[in-house]
């Protein structure tokens, strides 16, 4: 059976609902409200360079923390027996079935000025500490929400590193640190790359975490885009221009990391 035509409905669908909408973002970026060509939107988007830098900075910090916290966990999983590893994996995935807005709302309850943590500190006569509406809270929210996306690809790569490889290195006299740096880390590099992309992309484009945990003072790129489309500042042309900047940024990060040229892209994204 060499049928190709069965994919045509999807091709038509994707052209209409994937390609054309993205084309519209480009079109709106370079036109004004009347529809004539202009570069004003792109220039205006430059006003928000501070916000863009802040978004990138906070997501880089979050991505690094996710890697530092997720790596040991994935390593522990890869060295335990299959049933334990499966159970840990399920426990990591399970929270994702609870709506993420609610989980973030849960963090608000914990971090508030008269929230659970501050009430706890109060028992010892400490605080109250100002935790909510800070950059730290935004980073915490990003790490919390996106760390499963780091652990999954790490786990799928590391579970394929055989115990014999590690034992061979040990037999040849490698210290635990050089086993890690010379064997385990190089072998898990594809997982690290994927994990970085899978955390960085949603983190840099979020607008909910910054709104809920960052208060009004920690606006990120996503907040500014949302404001242009659904906020009072309704200006889809400017919004499109900022979206275009975000898209270019994400594509740049992906091509630098070699993510797009990966032969196993299919395996990586699932």
């Amino acid at each position, binding site marked *: 059976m060499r*049928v190709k035509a069965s994919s045509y409905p*999807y091709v038509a669908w994707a052209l209409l609902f*994937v390609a054309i909408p993205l084309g*519209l973002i480009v079109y709106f970026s370079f036109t004004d409200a009347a529809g004539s060509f202009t570069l004003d939107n792109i220039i205006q988007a430059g006003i928000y360079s501070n916000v863009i830098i802040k978004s990138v900075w906070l997501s880089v910090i979050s991505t690094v923390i996710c890697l530092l916290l997720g790596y040991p966990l994935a390593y522990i999983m890869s060295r335990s027996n299959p*049933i334990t590893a499966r159970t840990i994996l399920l426990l990591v995935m399970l929270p994702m079935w*609870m709506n993420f807005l609610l989980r973030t709302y849960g963090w608000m309850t914990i971090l508030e000025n008269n929230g659970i943590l501050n009430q706890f500190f109060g028992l010892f006569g400490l605080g109250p500490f100002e935790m909510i509406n800070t950059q730290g809270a935004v980073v915490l929210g990003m790490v*919390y929400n996106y760390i499963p996306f780091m652990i999954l690809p790490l786990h799928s790569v590391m579970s394929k590193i055989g115990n014999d490889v590690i034992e061979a290195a040990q037999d040849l006299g490698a210290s635990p640190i050089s086993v890690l740096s010379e064997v385990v880390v190089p072998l898990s590099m594809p997982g690290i790359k994927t994990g970085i992309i899978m955390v960085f992309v949603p983190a840099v484009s979020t607008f909910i975490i910054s709104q809920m945990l960052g208060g009004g003072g920690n606006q990120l790129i996503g907040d500014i885009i949302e404001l242009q*489309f*659904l906020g009072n500042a309704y200006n889809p042309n400017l919004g499109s221009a900022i979206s275009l900047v975000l898209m270019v940024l994400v594509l740049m990060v992906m091509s630098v990391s070699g993510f797009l040229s990966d032969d196993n892209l299919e395996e990586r994204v699932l």
Partner: protein
Amino acid sequence: MRAFARTYLGVFMAFLYAPIIVLIVFSFNESKGRTFTGFTGKWYVQLFSDAAVMDALFTTLVVAFVSSIVATIMGTAAAIGLNNMEGKLKSGIMGMTYLPIINPEIITGVSFMLLFVVAKDFLGGLGVPFQFGWATLIIAHITFNVPYVILNVLPKLRQMDGSLVDAAMDLGCNHWQAFTKVVIHEIKPGIIAGFIMALTFSMDDFVVSYFTTGAKHQTLSVLIYSMTKKRVSPEINALSTIIFVVVLLILITVNLVERRNINKARKAQLERKREGGSFG
């Protein structure tokens, strides 16, 4: 090392489950505020008579099931066609397939909004009424669901022995019969995995729904989002607790069944070894 691993796991899980435990505890809170004043089960009862919550739940389920079913059919058909393609055409289509997955969600959401705004103007000019609502939500969800189906089905098609289809057709099947009698059984696990993935992503989606929803029907996530601006009703906590417990029970059951199968397979293997040993 063992002790370190245990401690690390414990602390990590505490971090992961802290807000979830808070949510569950507050679903039993007497008052609507964010301080615990006393135990009650009333939110679990009120939940079912709250029209806004029930309507949002209904919308979420309808959108999720309709979009996942359409996406599964369209995606499976697309995967079969793609499997028979080569070269530039295939990589072009695959590129379009990866786009919604690797693009930031907000870009996908915003691009849909632009499309529907333009469509509204255009159709309005022709005298055709068009509004944000069921159609826009479902179209958007189908679009971000199809790639997951395609990417789950394609590997199964590649693993399939191509001569099976040739054999079926030699024996007199037409294309459609070869599909329903042979191909579909070979790729069923991929189709099911794709469908479940689509369903999960659709029910969990907030960002795309937020940009494509109309004034009338909101999904649960959009309703929750509008509540977080003021105060989330404990009814939502109660509903989430119910969903969480249901998912937990399903996962435990699946896990137990699998564990039993693994143990069975192991026992069988041991037995075979023992028998083999007695021969030697």
